[in-house]
């Protein structure tokens, strides 16, 4: 699975958690926080993504990501 496919999984779960972003055109540089996801929403989006990928890695590792592209990159490096 490449980084872009992981990015699309993150996008899909972001839309699930924040239905208001249904029509948003997501870019790798988008920040979940800037899009309106609070800390609980962000944790849920990451957990849903890890569950989809059956990936068991600590949430803390993802804290470094400043945007959705970086988040996809960190997860990609753990696969």
């Amino acid at each position, binding site marked *: 699975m490449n980084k872009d496919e992981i990015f699309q999984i993150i996008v899909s779960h972001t839309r699930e*958690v*924040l*239905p*208001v972003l249904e029509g948003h055109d997501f870019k790798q540089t988008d920040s979940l926080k800037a899009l309106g996801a609070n800390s*609980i*929403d962000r*944790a*849920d989006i990451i*957990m849903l993504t890890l*569950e989809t990928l059956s990936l068991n890695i600590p949430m803390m590792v993802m804290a470094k990501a400043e945007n959705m592209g970086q988040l996809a990159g960190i997860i990609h490096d753990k696969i």
Partner: protein
Amino acid sequence: MTKSSVVVSGLGVTSAIGQGKREFASALLAGRSHFDVMRRPGRQRPPSVDETGEQSSAFLGAEIADLAMPESIPGSLLRTTSFSARVALATLHEAWHDAKLERVEPERIGLVIGGSNIQQREIVQLHDTYRGREQFLRPTYGISFMDSDLCGLCTDVFGIRGFAYTVGGASASGQVAVLEAAHAVASGRVDVCIAIGALMDLSYWECQGFRSLGAMGSDRYADDPASACRPFDRDRDGFIFGESCAAVVVEKDESAQRSERTPYARLTGWAMEMDANRNPNPSVEGEVAAIKTALDRAGLAAAEIDYINPHGTGSPIGDITELESLRRSRLDHAYLNATKSIIGHGLSAAGAVELVAVLLQMEEGRLHPTRNLVNPIEPSFKWVKDQPVPHRIENALNLSMGFGGVNTAICLQRYF
């Protein structure tokens, strides 16, 4: 007697017989019920290993068919809310607008939610879903498993900033919440206090526990769910569960002028008395004490009560005890019906929902029938049986009892 300045200015109700006060009142007065084998996921025991996929229990109850959520409640919030919380939000929405609380300073509004361990079915479902892969459990579970999440959700959505907490009193929780709201308003802590009797979302574990305890029926009517819920009838065999929730807005008379509508009623007296007993058995002494304290506080003689909405669950011992308490309190002259015969036992919600039933009957000028009351255990009481009765309620008494020796009573008086 001086008139109480504490009034009920708004209400909301959701139950298996209808959502909203109009639907609820109409179904109550028509005696329309919806008892059946419960179908909500997690309400029946899963098939055990030695069975062949057949459902291994058939607990009876009345479930809410379709919950309509107000559009103003954000969808992103609903994603992580339990069924109990969604019902509370929808019910509070009705009460909020009924009392026009958007005109009250948020800092002067309080919230008391009656009920403990109210989200059991959702929690069991979640545990079953994530068993063996617990690492993927939603982070939101860390806040949603607590009953106080309902306080967080309600204050968030409606902007309440006074105070908010939950109170538990077993099956009297809803009425305990109303008592707390009345205290908060009477003492001046807040101008408005909302009491919610929260929906108790039973899982099959609690259903089994209640059955094993002998509290929940019905072996006798397993094949006839419509006949199973029969408070005060000789053939009763325990309570039948019913999903419900109510929100009651309590405030001072002068504060209620804001809404430009006549308050539903005055809260004239209220009481909570304990039996000093952990067990589920009721006591005449405790019930009589609660009734006496509430009447004294209201400045009423028993003879002035003209309608009683009793706890009346269908419990073999509870119903007999309650009638004996009413007799000893010289209240056997007043009209009596059993709301649970139509909506089932809402447990944590019951005390608030039945108070709403009193107010709506007061407004309608009619008393709802009591279903399945074919052979009353005490025929000499003034029962409202299978047909509604026209009656102008002046002073009503509403009772709730809970396991662990809880006895509560509230007196409600027509506003004018």
